[in-house]
């Protein structure tokens, strides 16, 4: 079982996506079951892969490395969470093509994890390990929540277009109602806001509990700035929505979500493109071994 490779689950998700795409072409009675089978197979292989990565990191580091052994794994875990959400939604709404929107994101995250993200494993220091884990987990969940909100937003715009142009009349595809999509979008954004808040606070704690001799992460680091901007943006849209009813209805809310997604993309891009000292780039990892206080922090996006 330890021979499970990324290709195994990526290929399963890709087949599930291909089957989702055939929804646009024809109807089939058995497609749903086959699609679900590939999705479940992919998730199973994905889970096994992550499990063996944790075991391997334990064996090589001599201590349980936790789920965030490397930046690459951070992306693979984000993809894994999205795959679970995809399967959950597909089981409950078999006729809705959620996979058309979620599976490209799952495959995209796997692709970034494999081809762009840093695969080097990192150690951790006990003093910062807890804050690092909280920081990494909360920002991971915030990322997944923003992605789900983004998908709900895209589906909302798609459904709005279908209803406006009467395309829903002739199309065989079935989308959730606008009301349901707006709910999914809003709830995901609330979760993203909370998780971002936790992520930022734990990041501050992480910065203060760094090992002696390690330079602090500058507060004007691009990743920190983008993350805080995204938090402020989500907070503002929430406050404006609560005070001014039209701002929390219809397409306007969806456009707000698209902006949040842009923030997320900028944050991820900043992390991946060496513009930041955030993940041990530059001074942070100059300590030699790379087992610094920012080890877990390095795996977070913020």
């Amino acid at each position, binding site marked *: 079982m330890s021979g499970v490779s990324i290709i195994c689950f990526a290929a399963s998700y890709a087949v599930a996506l291909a089957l989702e795409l055939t929804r646009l072409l024809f109807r089939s009675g058995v497609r749903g079951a086959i699609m679900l089978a590939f999705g479940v197979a992919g998730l199973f292989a994905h889970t096994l892969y992550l499990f063996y990565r944790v075991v391997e990191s334990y064996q090589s580091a001599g201590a349980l490395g936790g789920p965030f052994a490397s930046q690459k794994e951070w992306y693979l875990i984000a993809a894994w969470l999205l795959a679970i959400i995809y399967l959950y939604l597909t089981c409950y709404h078999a006729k809705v093509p959620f996979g058309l929107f979620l599976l490209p994101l799952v495959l995209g995250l796997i692709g970034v994890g494999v081809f762009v993200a840093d695969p080097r494993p990192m150690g951790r220091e006990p003093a910062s390990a807890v804050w690092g884990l909280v920081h990494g987990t909360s920002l991971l969940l915030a990322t997944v929540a923003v992605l789900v909100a983004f998908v709900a937003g895209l589906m909302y715009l798609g459904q709005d277009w279908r*209803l406006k142009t*009467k395309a829903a009349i002739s199309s065989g595809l079935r989308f*959730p109602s606008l*009301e349901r999509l707006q*709910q999914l979008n809003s709830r995901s954004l609330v979760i993203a806001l909370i998780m971002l808040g936790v992520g930022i606070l734990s990041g501050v704690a992480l910065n203060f509990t760094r090992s002696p001799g390690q330079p602090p992460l500058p507060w004007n680091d691009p990743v920190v700035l983008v993350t805080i901007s995204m938090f402020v943006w989500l907070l503002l849209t929430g406050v404006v929505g609560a005070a001014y*009813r039209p701002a929390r209805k219809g*397409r306007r809310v969806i456009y707000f979500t698209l902006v949040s997604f842009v923030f997320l993309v900028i944050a991820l891009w900043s992390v991946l493109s060496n513009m930041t000292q955030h993940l041990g780039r530059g001074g942070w990892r100059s300590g030699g071994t790379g087992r610094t206080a920012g080890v877990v922090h390095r795996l977070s996006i913020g």
Partner: protein
Amino acid sequence: MNVHVVGCNHRSASIAVRERLAFSTEQARTALREFRDRFPGVEAVLLSTCNRIEFYTAAETDSSPSLEQVAGFLARFHGQDLKEILPLLYEYHGDAAIRHLFSVASSLDSMVVGEPQIPFQVKQAYQVAVESQTAGPLLHTAFQTALKVARRVASETTIQQRRVSIPSVAVSDFARQIFERFDDKRVLVIGAGEMAEETIRYLRAEGAGDITIVNRSAERAKELAHRTGGRPLAWEALPQALATADVVVSTTGAEEPIMTVQRFAEIEALRDQRPLFILDLAVPRDFDPAIADRPEVYLYSVDDLREVCERNRAERDKELPKARKIIDEETLRFAADWRHRATGAVIQQLRADWESIKEEELRRLFQRLSQLDERGREEVRQSFHRLLNKLLHPPMESLRDEARHGFPQALLDALSKLFQLKD
């Protein structure tokens, strides 16, 4: 199987006749009580909907009332001329009556095939008969099975999923794509015609509770509000009602649009950009088509919906053979089960006789083998029990096989004679 149905439906009788023969729930209770007094020992269920009035009767013997007797009862109850209604009535006996009941309950015999109300109406008719104590074992089984068959048809075919009337398509295929639930939505109905009433019915079925009716004639608005549990509102209050509505159904006979883009723009400012589903069922249209371009407005006209109705009708027709096959299968199964059940008395007697022989033989054997311990005795008991079951199995199977093709009277007689079973 002495099940008999006499009735008329949308195919055999005009609406004028059906109206004269229809029963309210209270009238149905009275009629069933009178029927029970007039035909004691006969089971009866009375099904009365807009499209059919049917009397289902059943009796253990051949004492079920004839077509003429049921027709006479109907004519007397409603004060109608028997000669006028008799030619409009149809009747089915035995398996055909059961097949008819299953088709009715599954809405295959409805004016709009697949309409979802009929299983509920069949259930209601059965409940009234149960309360009136006119449903006996045969009709209990028949109606309970009919409701199960209706559920099977609904789950194994898409016949009830495809709406074919314009109001039902508007609600199920369009409104549900915008709103997830209707119990917290405000519905505004403009006009008080039949189409408005039918649409309200579908919206109510989806859970809509807050329904306001606006009509030029306040009297008609009040009448419709009274019938549908809505709230009438003066015509002049239309803009305010539109500002707070989530769903609008417009069915007036106005020759010019009652809502222009300019007028709507003024109302739109008060709406907080909440989504608005407008169902314009009027011809000519009540809402200017340009309103559809406004943000968060989803405007549909009759033409938009007609296409879906036609497509659904075609899809539904494709499902009909599958649904009919289910009805045939279930009718055969029901008839066979019922006939098999009717052989129960003979089987029971045969088993009782053999059981008594078995017990007698066991008693004798245990007296002779007094050294047998309790475990040994139990083994012997089990062995005799298995032997008895194995001996009974072939005649029971033969009876079951025969029951599939008809009542196995000859076989029952042969069994009674061979094993000297007493009546």
